[in-house]
């Protein structure tokens, strides 16, 4: 397998999310003009290091690329953290 490297993006993005059952799951996000549909939520974790926790999601989009999204619970802002690239 070729090496993986993480490219930091760190930008606010518009996300469609499902809040059913009190559990938030991203469904799609828009970066630039392109909408990425979330094919799978790989992992989710909560970072309580600061006063306002941040929810993190590792997701795979429909193209098979793996992104990391975060939801800042203080202001409900979504940010796209990074993308893991092969090669």
């Amino acid at each position: 397998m070729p090496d993986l490297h993480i490219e930091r993006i760190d930008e606010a993005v518009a996300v469609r999310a499902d809040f059913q059952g009190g559990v938030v799951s991203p469904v799609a996000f828009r970066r630039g003009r392109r909408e990425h549909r979330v094919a799978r939520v790989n992992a989710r974790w909560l970072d309580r290091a600061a006063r306002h926790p941040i929810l993190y999601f590792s997701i795979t989009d429909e193209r098979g690329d793996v992104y990391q999204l975060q939801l800042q619970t203080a202001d409900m802002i979504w940010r796209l953290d990074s993308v893991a690239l092969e090669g």
Partner: protein
Amino acid sequence: MAAILHVDIDAFFATIEQLRDPRLKGKPVIVGAGCIASCSYEARGFGLHAGMALSEARRLCPEAVILEGHAQVYRCFAEVIYERCRAIAPAVETYLDEAYCDLTGTERLHGDLLAAAARLKRHILERTGLTVTCGLGPNRMLAKLVGKTSKPDGLAAIAAADADAFLRDRPIEQLAGVGHTHARTLRSMNIRTIGALRPLSVEALAALFGAPGRMLYERCRGRDTAVVHAREIPLSISRETSFHRDTADRLEIEGMLEYLVGRACRTARELDIQPRTVAVRLRYADGESAAQERSLVAPSDADPVVLELALPLARRLFTRRVALHNVGVTLSNFVAGAAEQVTLFDAASAGRRHALLRALDGVRDAYGHGALVSGRALHLKGRLEEDRHGFVLRTPSLTR
């Protein structure tokens, strides 16, 4: 009868990386920089193990995927696991990838303790996607050792009555407290199993190994009186990092040292412990290393006090005309819960310093450690990536 449950997270860092990126599943994955901090079970099939140099790992397994790791992510996952442990046990002692749960006296609450451990495993898997190995025993040592026999994703128990037979034929290296050096000494005396250690008297073991020899005398008989502490007081708090590029720039080196001291001291303040000893370690680009430690006049968790000792140490150690690869600071020899001890004439300034540090901690608690950058650490701005946890270090070490 005491009942201790040891919970060990299987291939912790590597498994989280495989969870976060499904493309890594089934592949040999290594987490670490310089040496292996954690590797997946697929990598272990190639003979790789924690502590092995990455150069050796690459030679043995060229197809391995090597990642530098994400310490903060691992902490988040560990906290979910330990929260669950705290829900079933009155006292839980946690480390980064393992925990001891004292289940003594909870039989009426849980019923069969082995079934309770199985429920814990199931719950952890559902919540995190991680597998853990659980060992249940009459003391910490036996709980951990019996768990090791069923890794990964295992569950095993041992009764006090079976300890003798369980330990007797095990390799001497498996006994807690026997490291490489002790094992070499014992093997040179033809002591290869835990049972073979028993004929040695407590005096003989103390003469061989000092105070730890007395502990080995008890442990080889399956006895371990160490209790589970609900609040962990670490032996040391280490913060270290490799530079993104080897450097001889004093501003960068001292900036990094100040940053690491700040991180270590903040952890000490969070745990309400104060170190007496400060150590600084440097590793040069050619592999040579240098380390020195000094004692503080009085225990202190204040960044300026610790830095006042650490900076001259680093300056004294950095003597060669070779770039540095790695720098680290270790606080140890802790005093618990003591207010900063000062001499009579320092009392007023120490009080102000204490108030200032508490205020800074408050800001960082609210907005993340990266919200404030102090003094020399400003030289790192623009050179290192930042997130709300502060500068993104290459190989952040974790509290031991």
